[in-house]
């Protein structure tokens, strides 16, 4: 858990905010948003909205009322209380990459396996800066299809003692996640225990499977992240302001649904805003547009008084190269400037989210640690001015041995995990390893360090029984 006490960087003027405000109101009231779920349509109809086939035309004030019901901040409990996370306010929580079908280790790119999934869980457990392994850290292609969500939840529950994300592929899968979480933690209604990602099928349509999962989670008081996933040019117009109003329209309508399902249930305003390359049609990540969108979104979410999700170490790059480095930071630094509360894809994301990279994971943890250091406010007091050190060293001397230095030298500066400041000869002597090669060594060493967090045998047994029983029922 990181508490970001630095100022937020806000770039929208009051006028701009007012314009955006008019914009989303027009979209929801004049164009409307489609919900591919009879249950959802029924709830909206009952609430007095105008429903035409699958399309709902909203009264903007109604949406604001629903939004006002959602909690501003809430806790999500982990089985190790020290890892319980607070979502909202100045808090920032970080989860690993989510959803990639492939993995990359060094020069090899291949289908992801359950073993990879386990190793990423272990890395997320070992690095203290990570608050969660996320959910689908990679898609374990070798696990049986209809029941692999059980394997994933079981792995997240046993290999880490941090919070984890729920499965959203279908309503029943969501129910399994909830059931297994109950086995692990008992009461999960008072303090929720698993966050789930519900993506909008933009533009302006919420899809049936996602909605089924949302019904399960919201009814069980588990937080859902309602994310318009907007690649400008494909799912939204080629304009950041237009995309922002679409994002508000989609997120608020999704949030309103949660509040109708269970008033007061926790929700997170999601944002994932980037663009496609208009030449080739490929999605681009770590772009300037995306950074600007992120800064604006933070300001907007705060305006609605909602916790929000965005950011991540995103990149289009295929390997852990320089592009991966600058693109990852191009999104992560604005993530801190804007103070996102829940950050997915913090570590390991490569190739537009198609690949989870082991080296990239280490690189991203380094970036995360640097930013957490950078966004810890300076203490500026008389004492911090170290006048005595200046007086002691005087003119043209050096501070290596000053009393002030002696008291602080171990902790005074950020100490890198991956970055090297070796001089050239030493670097050559050590094998001239670039950052990616050093990252390989680091993640292997970290996997050696891993120790499974203790878990009550009875609970483990019960979880295993549940998995076995459900797998049989699902016919895998």
């Amino acid at each position: 858990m990181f508490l970001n006490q630095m100022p937020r960087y806000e770039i929208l003027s009051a006028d701009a905010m007012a314009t955006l405000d008019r914009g989303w109101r027009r979209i929801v009231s004049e164009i409307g948003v489609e919900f591919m779920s009879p249950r959802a349509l029924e709830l909206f109809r009952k609430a007095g909205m105008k429903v035409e086939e699958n399309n709902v035309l909203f009264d903007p004030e109604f949406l604001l009322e629903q939004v006002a019901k959602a909690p501003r901040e809430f806790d999500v409990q982990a089985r190790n209380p020290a890892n319980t996370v607070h979502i909202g306010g100045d808090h920032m929580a970080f989860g690993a990459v989510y959803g990639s079908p492939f993995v990359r280790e060094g020069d090899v790119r291949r289908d992801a396996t359950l073993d990879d999934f386990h190793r990423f869980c272990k890395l997320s457990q070992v690095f203290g800066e990570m608050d969660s392994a996320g959910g689908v850290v990679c898609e374990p292609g070798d696990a049986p299809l209809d029941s692999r969500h059980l394997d994933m939840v079981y792995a997240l529950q046993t290999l880490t003692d941090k919070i984890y994300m729920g499965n959203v592929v279908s309503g029943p899968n969501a129910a399994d996640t909830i059931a297994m979480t109950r086995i692990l933690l008992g009461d999960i209604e008072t303090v929720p225990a698993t966050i789930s990602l519900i993506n909008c099928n933009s533009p302006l349509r919420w899809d049936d499977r996602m909605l089924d999962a949302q019904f399960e989670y919201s009814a069980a008081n588990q937080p859902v992240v309602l994310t318009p996933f907007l690649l400008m040019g494909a799912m939204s117009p080629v304009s950041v302001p237009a995309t922002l109003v679409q994002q508000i329209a989609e997120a608020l309508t999704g949030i309103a649904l949660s509040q109708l399902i269970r008033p007061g249930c926790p929700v997170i305003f999601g944002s994932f805003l980037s663009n496609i390359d208009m030449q080739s049609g490929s999605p681009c990540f770590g772009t300037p547009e995306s950074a600007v969108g992120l800064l604006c979104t933070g300001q907007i979410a705060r305006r609605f008084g909602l916790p929000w999700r965005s950011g991540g170490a995103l990149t289009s790059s295929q390997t852990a190269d320089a592009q991966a480095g600058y693109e990852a930071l191009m999104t992560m630094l604005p993530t801190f400037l804007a103070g996102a509360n829940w950050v997915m894809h913090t570590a390991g994301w490569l190739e537009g989210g198609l690949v989870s990279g082991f080296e990239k994971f280490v690189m991203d943890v380094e970036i995360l640690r640097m930013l957490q250091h950078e966004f810890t406010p300076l203490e500026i007091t008389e004492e911090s001015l170290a006048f005595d050190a200046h007086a002691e060293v005087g003119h043209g001397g050096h501070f290596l041995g000053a009393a002030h230095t002696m008291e602080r030298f171990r902790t005074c500066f950020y100490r890198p995990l991956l970055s090297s400041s070796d001089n050239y000869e030493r670097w050559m002597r050590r094998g001239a390893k670039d950052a990616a090669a050093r990252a390989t060594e680091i993640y292997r060493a970290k996997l050696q360090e891993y120790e499974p967090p203790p878990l009550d045998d009875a609970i483990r047994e019960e979880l295993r029984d549940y998995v076995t029983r459900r797998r049989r029922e699902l016919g895998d």
Partner: protein
Amino acid sequence: MTEQEILQGLYDRTLVGDAPAVLDLTDQGLAAGLAPETMLFEALIPALEEVGARFERGDFFVPEMLIAGRAMAGAMEVLRPLLAQTGAASLGRFLMGTVKGDVHDIGKNLVNIMLEGAGFEVIDLGVQVAPERFVAAIREHRPDIVGFSAFLTTTMPMFKANINALEKAGLRDQVIVMVGGAPVTQEYADAVGADGYAADASTAVRRAKELLAGRRAVAGTPS
């Protein structure tokens, strides 16, 4: 205008996606007695091949492909009935859909744009298309090729389900099956028994043409 000028005009205007002009020139061509085949094979298809080449080189952007495709489609509205009479068809008919359980359609839309651009007639069933709908649509439209798009490893197994459904319906031999989508690989395509796979839209067009040529060569039909 001479015939040559009309063909040149058709080529030029299609290249820049000027649909009204293309339609107008098509009418003029017919009035001047140009054969529909001539216009199709000597102006429209070459124009779209050039569009494809420019896209590949990075000169043309996706929206430019799209409007060129639309311009050609406009001309085809007029020419298709006439071509049908003379027996000359479009390059081929392609039935496309994103598989059941999957709503990703950006990649599929790009493939459609490029296929139309290359002279295929494309019928798009949209997203979340169940095996039964594929079967029904194949019965109705008699496509040369059917394409399945999937972007989730959890929906890729629908390729196999679709192919099984085609086999049960006795249609498997009548169509070429192509598959694609970001997580799909050549190995996976082979494993489920698809006839073709492509990693991006321009390769998809190239593969579609090759597969069609191969099929027609076997069937002894003139390519």
